[in-house]
């Protein structure tokens, strides 16, 4: 959590925020009108192959970058509105959770920031985090749009979760292709760019990570399928759990 704030001291990290935001926004705009699922709210988001990759490479810069990129997508798409507020929060989580949980979701995680592609750990952890971060994003955004009365929770939480999970899974191909270049040529892996003193320690990493898992998965399944009548309440409770868990990371 600390790094999310201290990164603003570092020029390269600030630029990475802008670069991530611009790539994400450019891709969002390019495909915005391609296949709308709910006009003005969401579409088949090809651009979502990026956030998880950004996250594992650029850490906190990815969280802010994804959030700002989504906002710019709304601005250029003409869909800037109150919905954009939690669009910001949800997309922030999409860029925040993968890197923050990569080291804390024990026993799946082993605490290493650097990625080792060989072995069982990488594919399992990647797939789990792709799903959890997407569901967390889906729950938070769907809750808010239900509060605003724009789209039913059941519909939107499912669309976002499924769409972002699939896109993040495809994103693994991008990660495999660029990890080495970012590490060796560009030297931009976030924990190497930032001053180690600024990175800080999670408050209660493993607890936070599992809280996020519970909030995201239960919030989506219970709210969208099992207790649809109480969807709003479930969405709000799940959002609180996810946000508290995130703060502990």
């Amino acid at each position, binding site marked *: 959590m600390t790094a999310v704030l201290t990164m603003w001291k570092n020029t390269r990290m600030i630029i990475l925020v*802008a670069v991530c935001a611009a790539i994400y926004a450019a891709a969002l705009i390019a495909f915005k009108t391609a296949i709308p699922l709910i006009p003005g709210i969401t579409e088949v988001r090809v651009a979502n192959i990026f956030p998880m990759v950004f996250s594992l490479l650029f850490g906190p810069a990815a969280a802010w970058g994804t959030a700002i990129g989504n906002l710019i997508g709304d601005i250029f798409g003409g869909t*800037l509105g109150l919905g954009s507020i939690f669009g910001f929060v949800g997309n922030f989580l999409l860029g925040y959770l993968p890197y923050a949980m990569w080291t804390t979701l024990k026993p799946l995680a082993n605490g290493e920031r650097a990625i080792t592609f060989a072995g069982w750990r990488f594919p399992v952890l990647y797939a789990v985090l792709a799903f959890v971060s997407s569901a967390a994003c889906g729950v938070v955004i769907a809750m808010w749009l239900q509060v605003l009365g724009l789209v039913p929770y059941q519909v939107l939480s499912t669309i976002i979760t499924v769409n972002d999970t699939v896109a993040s899974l495809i994103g693994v191909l991008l990660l495999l292709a660029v990890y080495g270049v*970012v590490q060796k040529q560009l030297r931009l892996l976030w924990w190497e760019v930032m001053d180690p003193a600024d990175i800080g320690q999670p408050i209660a990493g493993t607890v936070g990570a599992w809280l996020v898992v519970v909030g995201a998965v239960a919030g989506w399944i219970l709210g969208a399928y099992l207790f649809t009548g109480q969807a709003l309440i479930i969405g709000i409770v799940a959002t609180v759990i996810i946000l508290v868990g995130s703060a502990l990371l």
Partner: protein
Amino acid sequence: MNIFLYLDENTWFHRLDPRTKIIGVLLLFGLPLAFNDPRYVGAVALGLVALGAAAKALPNFWRMRYLLLLLVLFSSVLWPFFAKGPTPLWSWGPLEVSRESLLFGIAMGLRLASFVAAGLIFLSTTTNEEFTQGLIRLRLPYPVAFAFSTALRLVPTFAGAGATIVQAQVSRGLDLESGNVFQRGRKFIPLAVPLFIYAVRHTNLLAMALESRGFSPLAQRTWYVQLRMRRDDYIALAVLATLFVAAVALRLAGYGAVLPRL
């Protein structure tokens, strides 16, 4: 294509302080939110169209016409299945549509369209610089505002690079138009990888250029763009605040809702 929505006119709205516009658009968002009766939300929507005309923003409304239309239609069709009302119109198994839920759906569509309309008026009358400067004066920390405005500036650059990349790969035989979702997804890799590397290569150069011009994230600085709240700004804010309070009061008094609990 010009992806920016700003329209270079000189209306009363254009001349307002960006802080007024930011707070104003938030107040405007509140108006459709206060109601869920299509007649009330419709009145707000019409008011926004009039405002759009005064701000000479209608060309952008026209540009977004399909989106605006789709919002209303889609929402009218979708909502009745989820919102429950007391007067049934039609039912099929567990699905049930009531009079209230149908009206509610139309109102929600109009609400969404109103949001888009308010946002369009804002974007049509505010330059990127003013937007950024307004956010800074509303206490957004400078590094964040800087990242935001740099991203705005980079989007067209990256979109242009993206278009070239598509051409380069298509001319090597990449076929983007066939295959199922997963196959198509895989085909974005030859596009996403070069775009990613191209963009990220920018990072070191930009950071160098920035520091070479004296940038230091937390240091003191002065501003070239100066903002000043004028009499018109206070009038605009007062009018919008009054409208907002009036809307909330109406709703609390029981008007403007077909489904009072939602």
